[in-house]
């Protein structure tokens, strides 16, 4: 083996080690995990996974997460697309300041907003709904989405708009049939960032839900505290939590590379 192959291999091993450890743990019993050091599961068990797939408190956590994450991504993109278009194509009073201060909400930790959100949503009856979490995350994702999309939109020349109008497209027809396809890689990148933020954000999601919309990450924290050491179960839940993120990254990987080269990521 060539010397220069060692570095990338070491790097990949280093990256994969925690994930391997998680996957290996998920097939062990809790006793084996606590019992000592073992590289492979000594007695393979699928019980951990079976528990998750059959117990509604577990699998509904996944559904809840996926529902509010999707909801959030859709809301963020729907709102951010026209906003970013306005910032990219029109000049109006205070546009530059407004554009910068959009990011205000990202200048503080999410925890800062947990209390006001909790109080507000309890008051208007949104507490413990998927919409509550999706809206709370939109506060962070919409500014980011506007920021990213504006970069992509500005890289599309204004002449494309003019060409479409001259060809006879109305504004809505131009926006949907010409403009959105022209920046589809930007939309892919934006959707990815919205998804990722919402998928990994725990604090707000946990604060704003109790039972009906409880996200999987919150389910995981609870189990570790109340039912003693269920490490195998927890590892299996962890593996299943990685999968959606991995799938999304797989689909947008080409867009992301393009996005880093083109836009404002």
């Amino acid at each position: 083996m060539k010397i220069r192959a060692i570095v990338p291999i070491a790097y990949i091993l280093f990256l994969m080690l925690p994930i391997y450890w998680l996957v290996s743990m998920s097939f062990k019993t809790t006793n084996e995990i606590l019992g000592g050091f073992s590289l492979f599961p000594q007695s393979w068990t699928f019980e951990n996974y079976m528990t998750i797939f059959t117990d509604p408190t577990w699998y509904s956590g996944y559904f809840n997460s996926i529902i509010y994450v999707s909801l959030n991504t859709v809301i963020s993109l729907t709102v951010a697309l026209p906003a970013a278009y306005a910032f990219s194509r029109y000049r109006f009073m205070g546009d530059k300041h407004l554009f910068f201060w959009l990011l205000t909400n990202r200048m503080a930790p999410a925890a800062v907003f947990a209390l006001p959100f909790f109080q507000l949503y309890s008051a208007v009856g949104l507490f413990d709904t998927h919409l509550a979490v999706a809206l709370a995350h939109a506060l962070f994702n919409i500014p980011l989405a506007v920021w990213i999309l504006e970069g992509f939109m500005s890289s599309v020349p204004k002449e494309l708009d003019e060409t479409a109008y001259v060809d006879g497209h109305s504004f809505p027809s131009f926006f949907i049939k010409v403009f959105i396809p022209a920046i589809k890689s930007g939309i892919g990148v934006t959707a990815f960032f919205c998804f990722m933020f919402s998928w990994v954000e725990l604090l707000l999601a946990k604060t704003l839900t109790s039972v009906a919309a409880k996200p999987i990450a919150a389910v995981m924290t609870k189990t570790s505290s109340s039912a003693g050491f269920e490490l195998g179960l927890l590892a299996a839940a962890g593996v299943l939590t990685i999968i959606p993120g991995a799938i999304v990254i797989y689909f947008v990987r080409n867009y992301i590379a393009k996005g880093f080269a083109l836009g404002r990521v």
Partner: protein
Amino acid sequence: MVLELRQISKKVGQDTHLYPTSLRLEPGKFNILLGATNSGKTSLIKILSGLEKPTTGEVWMDGENVTGVTPQKRNIALVHQFFVNYPHLNVFENIASPLRVAGVAKSEISDRVKEAADILQLGPMLYRQPGELSGGQQQRCALARAIVKESKAIFLDEPLANLDYKLREELRDQLPELFAGRGAIVVYATSEPSEALLLGGNTALVHAGKITQFGETTAVYRNPVDAISAEVFSDPPINVTNVTKTGNWIRLNDAVKWKATGSSADLADGPYTIGIRPHFIKPEKDKKGLVEILGKVEITELSGSESVAHFQVSGNTWVSLDSGVHPYQIGEEHLFYMDPTACFYFDADGKLAATGGTDG
């Protein structure tokens, strides 16, 4: 089909892009807007096409006031300086786009797209994406989209400016025949005087937000109405300098004077500005009646088979252009020969007062 601008002007914020200006374009002709960068050519095209509304004034099309009518409803076509195509559609769909929007039947779209693609030699590339084409092919795709729908007016905003020299020449030769016989008004913006002369038709000279002169291209070239028009329509730039007329003599400085020729003989005594194109100042005496000017050579350029010399005469820089290769020495005193019959004489307001005799 007549396209007319009536006293239109355009202001954006504090900046005036166009001063009140009028223009009347007849069908079936190549109309060239000639002017430097930022002179207002693109603003004119945007107003003519309806992409922008004039601040004041009206746009008339076929005897109808279309000032507020959007480009969608005007049946026009537009080609930009940058190669603008729909990046997500292949060449066929790019060309078909205006027909699809107009709701033309599928079989007809296919025929018309193929016809337009053949004219512009895009036949083999119909199913490629614009990003895979060369610059020249991308611009041909944009041109095909402009001719595929039978527009009443076609606007070309410096369509060849971003192409390399050879492609530009090739495409420029095709342009007049591309639009001939379509009966559309073609408006072609360019910053190169030579391009205007090659394309013929009518030329409007645009300078600092105004149309200074409009007419048949060669007539505009030969008879500039004022000093600015003469400057706009000359490449290399026309030589402009001050002279004094006393009796029958025109005096440039103490050493250089000549007898007034043509209509300049009838001018009243006094100061004038003359304009003379560089190719009427040559380094060799090849005919009678030329005026000797001794100048100090500052810069020389060789472009193909032409020699350009910039030289100093009593504080002014003059430019001489001659065919053939001339070995000038920088800093040397060289005798140049000016043809006084090719001079334009402008009065104090810059208006053409007289000519030295021959046409341009």
